[in-house]
């Protein structure tokens, strides 16, 4: 235990840098993931025949083991954070995409027809009815994606993108258990922390009228 605390103190700068790097990687990946998956989800909910193939492709990416995906990307993109980011974005896509799609498709058809019958345009229906009602699902997707990304970002170290994986990897190589822990613990805390915060947001995002 003392050894662990010593490590924390002596390697404080390094851990801090890795921590910030880790958050940066995860955050940017999720942000770009949302920017891609949310509009795509909205689109495939409108043009349903594209839904299956597009979700299918993202699902295939999802099944590739993460380390292998990093491995595939290195020969194409070389080493560095762009490679890590792209891999992370690919992983963030599916949960957000699928939940956005499911959330919008799940909105009661009669509610939408009421909107149509009252003379709302498609865009008005999307913005005033479908998106608000799908928001809890979308937020749940973002939460899943975030927790997933924080975990997988640990592997970014293998493509030289830094992050807390660096600390863990270094600890493993030097048989330094304290150092491994000094990397692993923050990752776990980060994942749990994000999960709690996003869960709270998810609750807040549930339209007031739907809470019981």
């Amino acid at each position, binding site marked *: 235990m003392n050894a662990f605390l010593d490590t924390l103190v002596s390697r404080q700068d390094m851990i801090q840098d890795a921590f910030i790097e880790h958050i940066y990687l995860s955050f940017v990946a999720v942000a770009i993931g949302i920017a891609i998956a949310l509009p795509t989800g909205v689109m495939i909910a409108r043009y349903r025949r594209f839904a299956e193939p597009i979700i299918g492709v993202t699902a295939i990416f999802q099944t590739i083991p993460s380390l292998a995906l990093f491995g595939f990307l290195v020969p194409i993109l070389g080493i560095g954070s762009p490679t890590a980011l792209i891999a992370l974005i690919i992983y963030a896509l599916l949960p957000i995409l699928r939940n956005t799609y499911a959330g919008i498709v799940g909105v009661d058809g*009669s509610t939408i*027809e009421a909107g149509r019958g*009252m*003379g*709302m345009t498609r865009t008005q229906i999307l913005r005033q009815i479908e998106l608000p009602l799908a928001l809890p699902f979308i937020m749940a997707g973002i939460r899943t994606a975030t927790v997933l990304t924080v975990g997988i970002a640990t592997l970014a170290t293998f493509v030289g993108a830094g992050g807390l994986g660096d600390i863990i990897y270094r600890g493993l190589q030097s048989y330094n258990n304290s150092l491994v822990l000094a990397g692993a613990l923050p990752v776990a805390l980060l994942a749990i922390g994000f999960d709690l915060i996003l869960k709270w947001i998810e609750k807040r995002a549930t339209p*007031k*009228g*739907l809470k019981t």
Partner: protein
Amino acid sequence: MIRFDKVTKRFPDGTEALKDISLELPARQLTAIIGPSGCGKTTLMKMVNKLENPTAGAIYIDDEPITGMDEVKLRRSIGYVIQRIGLFPHMTIADNVSLVPKLLNWPADKTDARSKELLQLVGLDPAVFMERYPLELSGGQQQRVGVVRALAGDPNIVLMDEPFSALDPISREQLQDELRHLQQEIHKTIIFVTHDMDEALKIADTIVVMKGGKVEQVGTPQQLIDEPANDFVRSFIGAERINQKRSFGERRLKEFLFLFDKDWAGEAERADAALAVGDAHQLLERSGKPRLAVVDEGTLVGFAGERELLRAALHVEKGAGV
């Protein structure tokens, strides 16, 4: 006035929902479209606000064809009450009701005043209900809001798609009564789709009976009962009313003697005038004879057939409704 001119609707899978329908629905009256499920009644109604478009034929509102009209504009000018929960669950009652006025860009104070006035009209206190959410309301209250929402934009035409079918019988009857009273004040052109003959007879000025994509008969409730155009209409009225025993009530035959024929040459089953109308109907059915010979304390007082009993039943209901 809404006019259908040789309207046919064929769905992509080949089924013909409507077959060459020509029909005029009077302005400022409540017209009920009734028929068994799959008869095309909802499709017919949805053509008025272009939720469905005809495969052939045309629809005119006040002699203007709606074919060329912008569908969004058209729909904003027509009230629409949907079956079940058409309210938006994430919006307050105030937001739900003011939706169409906002789409029409009414000034805020006018929208607000209109919403309050209408809620009051259906017996919902604005101070209590405006900020509530639909799921906090009972089914009957929700559908009142649904009716109010359809009226908010002050449309001339209101379409109602089985609006009360999901309600419990007591709320349903209440809302039917309220709608009738409301209509006496507002005089909108209302098209009311239903599969419930009792409901149609109770609230409609005109009834359109449909079957298999065709119109079987158009007439007032009284005309339908007095002169059903064919066996289908007769059985549709009859079957419905027999199923709904409440419409026959517990009233006695002798209260309706004025409705019965004095003479009858054919076969008749003897029935006591103290018999309840509902029981008398069953007796008539069981006997297989065309008429009942109604006897009051040994004296023959009249003859009643299916038609007379139905009239009596309608009478019971009209008496109870007001």
